[in-house]
């Protein structure tokens, strides 16, 4: 069973990396890129099939370690 945890920098937290990527895209000639935010995609392989507790377990993992709730939001996707 595969799952993914997407970690994003909270909207109110400055993301200098995203700004640098946006400027680089501009330099490459891509027009109209208003903003870029860089996050993380964490792919997780879990033993067995999905069970009703899986999403909650993954959210616990994200909250405990994969994301820092002070500066990041996360989203869990099953069966990625």
């Amino acid at each position: 069973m595969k799952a993914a945890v997407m970690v994003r920098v909270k909207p109110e937290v400055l993301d200098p990396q995203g700004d640098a990527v946006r400027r680089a895209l501009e330099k490459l000639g891509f027009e109209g890129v208003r903003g870029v935010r860089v996050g993380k995609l964490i792919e997780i392989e879990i033993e067995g099939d999905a069970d009703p507790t899986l999403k909650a377990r993954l959210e616990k993992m994200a909250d405990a370690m994969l994301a820092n709730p002070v500066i990041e939001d996360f989203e869990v996707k099953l069966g990625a």
Partner: protein
Amino acid sequence: MPSSRATVVIFPGLNAETEMLRTLSLAGFETTTAWHTDTELPARTDLVAVPGGFSYGDYLRCGAIAKVSPIVGAIRAHAERGGFVLGVCNGFQILTECGLIPGALTQNAHMRFECKDVFVRVHAEGPFTPKLDTVWRMPIAHAEGRYQATPETLARLEGEGRIALVYCDASGAVTDAANPNGSLRSIAGVYGGASKNVLGLMPHPERMSEPALGGTDGARLFEAAFAHLGKRAA
């Protein structure tokens, strides 16, 4: 009277433990070390120091992997007993990840690794920062030192006198130009713990602690903690 004892905790990937041990020793502490896999601190530990470096290669986030190390439970228990804990640079990042200090340290606003001397001003008195408005010169060496916290947390830190140090210029003026990483409110160091017994800061006081290093301002912070512990024991 037995001397105060400082334990320097070593996580894999740290690189500032030698100067931390030496500075603690020069300030009067009896020093020892603990390894990240230890589950207890050495007996009679008064102060735990978590030095700088790149614990676990900064994987995931600075300090994120270190927080699940076996020794962290012992550091937390020490802090909850009122014991002193000092985190410098990566040590500060580790203490925020562990929740011993509120907030988080994020990528410098301008994306560069900053390695230079800066000035900091004592913004709140505490065991490591005895005199308000004292200005100290200390080096920084970090890419992720931009202090972030929610407006509610910032208000609480200010209200409780936990903003220990702020970046400033040589005259003590807190300006945007003197803020090397874009930290909110120019925050360089923050107190945690019930009695401000936990301090995290991004600058390296242990690298400005004897004349051969270009200055001794950093030594004042360690001497203050040592004096405070001596008074407490007396």
